[in-house]
């Protein structure tokens, strides 16, 4: 993979091959068994017979991060645990994704105290946030399905990496969604001002 990764520009041939790779990836996500707190129990329940997260989606839990490509951060990340979370994330091989499960992993949850990191996105980059305290297993399902939608767009052999690429992709999605709802006028306006619609309304800029 290293030989062909990032070498080609986007064209019809590479997108089809990309699609094939991504289809394989999203249909067999192997997740790292990493439950921290209460959300871990719901994560375990989701992989148990009633909800069956593992078998139906081709997901399998691995105990070691070296063999995993998805990390569910399920539970509160404390300051004592945060370096470990980062180490585990670094040990995972690309391509890797992170689902932040539950309010503690999203924003620190009900624990705004001296010992808790207010959100795991201060430690690792997060792809999908699943809200809830704890989220129902059905909610976790929804998060996984959204992640699968994201995985299918992952561009392996065409050149796109990093946070900037994610921003561009998000803007493109937004423009496409607006165009689908209101026609093409909104799409033209957004692309002319150069700001994404969220930034235009809140004035929030991300570097």
């Amino acid at each position, binding site marked *: 993979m290293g030989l062909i990764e990032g070498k080609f520009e986007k064209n019809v041939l590479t997108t089809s091959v990309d699609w094939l790779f991504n289809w394989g990836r999203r249909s067999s996500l192997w997740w790292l068994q990493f439950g921290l707190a209460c959300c871990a129990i719901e994560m375990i329940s989701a992989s148990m017979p009633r909800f069956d997260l593992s078998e139906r989606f081709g997901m399998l839990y691995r105990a070691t991060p070296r063999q995993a490509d998805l990390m569910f951060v399920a539970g509160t990340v404390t*300051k*004592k645990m*945060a*370096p470990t979370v*980062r180490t585990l994330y670094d040990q995972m091989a690309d391509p890797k994704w992170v689902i932040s499960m539950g309010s503690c992993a999203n924003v620190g949850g009900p624990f*705004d*105290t*001296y*010992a808790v*990191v*207010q*959100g795991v*996105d*201060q*430690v*690792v*980059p*997060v792809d999908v946030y699943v809200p809830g305290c704890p989220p129902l297993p059905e909610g976790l399902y929804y998060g996984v399905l959204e992640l699968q939608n994201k995985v299918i767009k992952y561009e392996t052999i065409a050149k796109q990496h990093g*946070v900037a690429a994610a921003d561009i992709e998000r803007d493109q999605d937004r423009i496409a969604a607006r165009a689908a709802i209101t026609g093409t006028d909104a799409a033209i306006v957004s692309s002319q001002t150069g700001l994404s619609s969220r930034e235009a309304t809140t004035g*929030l800029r*991300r570097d």
Partner: protein
Amino acid sequence: MSQNPAPDAGTPPDAQETTQLPALDTQVAAELAPVIEPATDQTGVQEINPVWVYSGYWGPLDEAQHPAIIGLRAQFGDAIEEVTFFRDEVTVRVRTEQLAEICTFLRDTPDLKYQMVSDLTAVDMLNLRSEPRFDVVVTLYSIPRRWRLRLKAGVREDQPCPTLTTVYAAAGWLERECYDMFGIVFAGHPDLRRMLLAEDWDEGHPLRKDYPMRGYKQYVQPGFAGAAPRIRETPREGA
């Protein structure tokens, strides 16, 4: 003890589901002989009074009748500073220097046998009184008598408190937690280091009253440039 439908005849008796009465060492069995009197005496259905029923789970609520207090006053005299009763609870304030001897006495006296420590914690009395700052609270339980007892010892900020690890093994971790949360040093503890917070935590002792709930510093992952920004940065210094 509980009985279940018997398993197949071919199974070894050891592997049966039923659990029999303990075949304890006879000395231990004698010391742990249950109950001098039952805690409650229930026959049939009764009306429940919606006021909390003070049920005598801590012993008689009278200094002159409670065997532990009588024993303590006889043995230790004025190391027993104060006895209070609230609901059905008995609290004895003792002099800190003799805390370990008092606990040893309570544990070993055959009539009392407060052999189990339920809880060992501290309260920071900063907002309520000036000296001493902390109150170390020890809750003991006597299995034969089914009674609890609470001991309180005042500890000043720089004063070490005698350890109870020589008396009860459970005090090991409970005292470590007290040290971690309050900064109370237990003199003679074999392994006093931080437990619930990281061992090199340098921001103080959190459960003190002058420690802000949100703490002093935010966590910053070194080398991670993509930390998601928060819309409202709540101030942390002394919040």
